[in-house]
Every structure is written in C-alpha cells, then in structure tokens.
C-alpha cells in the first residue's frame, strides 16, 4: 500500500523537481526545493475506488508487472512454486497452528464476503446522511429566500393597487357624505311639513269652531222663537201626514 502511494506520488514529485541544467558553463545556481505552492485547501479529491486487488491480497499491479515476461499464469506459478518450496523444505512446518490458521482464516473470509457489502453500504449511508443534512440546510435556506422573494413581489403588486384602494375609499367617503346630506334634507322637509300641518290644523279647527258656534246660535234662536201655538199646529199637521202615509202604505200592501 505504501509502495502504491510512492508510485502515485512519483510523477508529481518528479515534475516538482527542477529540470536538469542544460546549459554547460553557466554558473550553477542554488536548486529550488519548493517549486509548487503547498496549499491545504482545496484538497484534492479522494480517489473513488481503492486500488484493484486480486484475491483480496495481491495488488493488480503485480500481475501487470509480471505479464510481459510470464503471461497470465506467471504470478500463479510463482505463488504455487513458493508455497510448495516452503512446504517441501519444511521452511514452513505444518503443525497445529496451521489448522487453527485455516479455521480463523475461513471465519474471516466468510465474514468479509458475507458482511462486506453491507458494511460498505452502511459507511456510505453515514456519509450520505452527513451530506444530506448539510444540503438540507442549504436547500432550506434557498427555499426560505425564494419564498421571501415571492412575498416581496406580492407586496410590490399590492402597492400597485394602491390607487384602487384610494378610489374606493374616496367613493366610500362621498357616499357617506351624500347619505348624510340626504338624511338632513329629509329632516328639514319633515320639520317644515310638521309646522305647516300645524298651521293648517289650527285653521281647520278655528273654522270648525266658528261653524259649530254659529249652528248652535241659530238653533238656540229658532228653538226660542217657536211659540207654543206653532208647536200645537205642527204636531197636528204631523199626525195628519202620518195617517195619510199609513193609508197609502195599507193600499200598497
């Protein structure tokens, strides 16, 4: 793993070195040690995937390294030969630890194969959640500001309707004034009518009173002028008229 780091850093380091001095005879100036500015931010992005590994242990670069000379089976032959050499020469002795090693390695490999993707997904989810939280904050801020913009536009539109509002208010006030004026006019009319009616009533009453008085006076005088002689005569005449009428009525029936 460290070798891969060195391999990756090598081109950048080589580029960072100054070019070899070309001109012969020029006075050799002091070599610059830092040609690139080291800055901490922005950090270079992490590689998306780790290095390619075969069988979980051996980096792919090893196979690529041996490919030109030995082809595809080269590294496997090397591995097999190495293992057989170690076993046959008893450089590695097969003892109880080998069996224990077999067991623990099988447990580890089973664990990695079975739970590896889940654990990786969990780690990715943790990172995603972290980013989502920050993004949520940013998005909420943006949404809030956009809502504020909408509100502001609405307020501006409302301001445009100011004149209508004032017209309506003006009309309102004019109507109130008109209504008030009419009301007062009505009141004046009623008051005047009341007074005129009073006068008329007074005149009517006066005339009535005069009439009544006159009728009473005439009646009084007439009754006074009726002598007893005239009374007898009128009563006799009435009786005769009644008799004649009753005769006429009998005949009709």
């Amino acid at each position, binding site marked *: 793993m460290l070798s891969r780091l060195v391999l990756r850093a090598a081109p950048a380091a080589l580029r960072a070195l100054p070019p070899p001095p070309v001109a012969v005879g020029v006075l050799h100036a002091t070599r610059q040690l830092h040609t690139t500015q080291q800055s901490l931010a922005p*950090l270079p992005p992490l590689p998306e995937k780790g290095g390619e590994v075969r069988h979980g242990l051996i980096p792919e670069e090893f196979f690529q390294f041996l490919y030109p000379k030995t082809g595809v089976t080269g590294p496997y032959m090397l591995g097999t030969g190495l293992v057989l050499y170690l076993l046959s020469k008893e450089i590695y002795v097969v003892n109880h630890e*080998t*069996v*224990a090693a077999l*067991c623990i390695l099988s447990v580890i490999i089973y664990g990695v194969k079975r739970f590896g993707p889940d*654990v990786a997904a969990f*780690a990715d989810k943790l990172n995603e959640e972290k*980013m989502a939280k920050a993004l949520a904050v940013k998005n909420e801020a943006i949404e809030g500001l956009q809502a504020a913009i909408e509100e502001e536009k609405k307020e501006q539109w409302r301001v445009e309707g100011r004149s209508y509002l004032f017209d309506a208010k003006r009309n309102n006030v004019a109507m109130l004034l008109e209504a008030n004026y009419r009301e007062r006019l009505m009141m004046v009319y009623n008051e005047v009518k009341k007074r005129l009616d009073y006068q008329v009533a007074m005149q009517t009453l006066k005339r009535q009173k005069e009439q009544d008085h006159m009728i009473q006076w005439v009646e009084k005088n007439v009754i006074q002028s009726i002598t007893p002689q005239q009374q007898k005569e009128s009563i006799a005449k009435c009786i005769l008229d009644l008799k004649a009428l009753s005769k006429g009525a009998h005949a009709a029936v």
Partner: protein
Amino acid sequence: MNLSFFDQFMSPSLLGIPLILISMLFPTLLYPSPNSRWITNRLLTLQSWFLHLITKQLMTPLTKKGHKWALILSSLMIFLLTINLLGLLPYTFTPTTQLSMNLALAFPLWLATLLTGLRNQPSASLGHLLPEGTPTPLIPALILIETTSLLIRPLALGVRLTANLTAGHLLIQLISTATTVLLPIMPAVSLLTLSILLLLTILEVAVAMIQAYVFVLLLSLYLQENI
C-alpha cells in the same frame, strides 16, 4: 518450527530486548488518524462511528464529572478489542494473556476510581459497602464481605481477562493439535474435531470482543459508584 503449547504465552524477546512493547503498540498502526476532510473514506467513517458509539455507550450513565474519563476508557476499549482480535491470528502473541499487563491496567484504574470516590464523597462511597435493608445483626459480617469484594476487584478484572483469553487460546491449540494428530489415523473424527474447532473459533472471536467490553464496562461501573 516445533511449538509446545505454552510458547504462545511466553513474552517475546529478541536478543534480550523485550518485544512486548512493540506488540502493544501495534494496534495503533492499524487505525488511520482522522484527516481534515469532511467526508472521509469508508474505513475512517466506520472508525469514527464506532468510537462515537462506544463513547456514548460508556458516558451516558455517568455525570458530567465522569466525562473526564471518556478518553481513557474509549482508548482502553479499542486497545483491548484490537489486541484480543489480533491474537486469534496464527503465530501471534496476545499481550492480554499476560497477567502482568492486565493487572497493570486494572489496578491503577480501579484505584483511581476508589480514590476519587474517597476523596470527593467519602461517606457516599463508603456507604456502598453496606447494601440497603440488611438486618442489623448481619451488618459487621456484611461490611467485611463487601470490603473484601471491593479489594478483590482489580484482581478480578485482571484475572478475568487473562483467564478467558489464555483458556481460549489454549483450547484452540489443543483442539487443533487433536485434529492434526487424528488426521492420518481417523480422518472422520478429525473432521468432526475440525468442525468443533470452527465453532470454537467463532466463540473465541465473540469472547475477545466481550471480554474487552466487560473490562471497560466494569471500570465505568466502578466509576459511576464513586464519581
């Protein structure tokens, strides 16, 4: 390399230089240190998550004063966990099988909790020696018993860890020897023994994790009583 059963428990030394220190420092090489990135790679994310988990687990029952112990308890936890799990690999030496190391971890930490309790709240911490609701005639006997149990705690902590790990490793050795020896004689029985060994290995993985957790948990419990 012919091994006897107890070679794995011998403290390794090379030309008279004790190598146990290097083997104790090895776990630190396995954990990447947090870098200045906000979104880190998977290993670092998982490591931070795990550390957060155990710190929260240990510190929730403690008061604010107890949070001073967060660093030492979580680092102890990671240390023991890693050492125990690494010891399951073949041909590795497990420092926690050495009683000296476990006592050296248990004694000072337990003593620290005890002295903290005696210093800051002496009557409360001594009051733990007598459980509530004991009948009066039993009190003297119970005080003696509780004091003994208090004083035996560091020994218990150290010996528990040592015994569990040593026994586990020894069992693995024995059963794998049985498997190896039986292989030419009775292969079927050898396969049976191999299956037992597989189960035992899984058990040992669990025991390794549990023992580390129990060690740190008990220490945090003792701290809770005394802080």
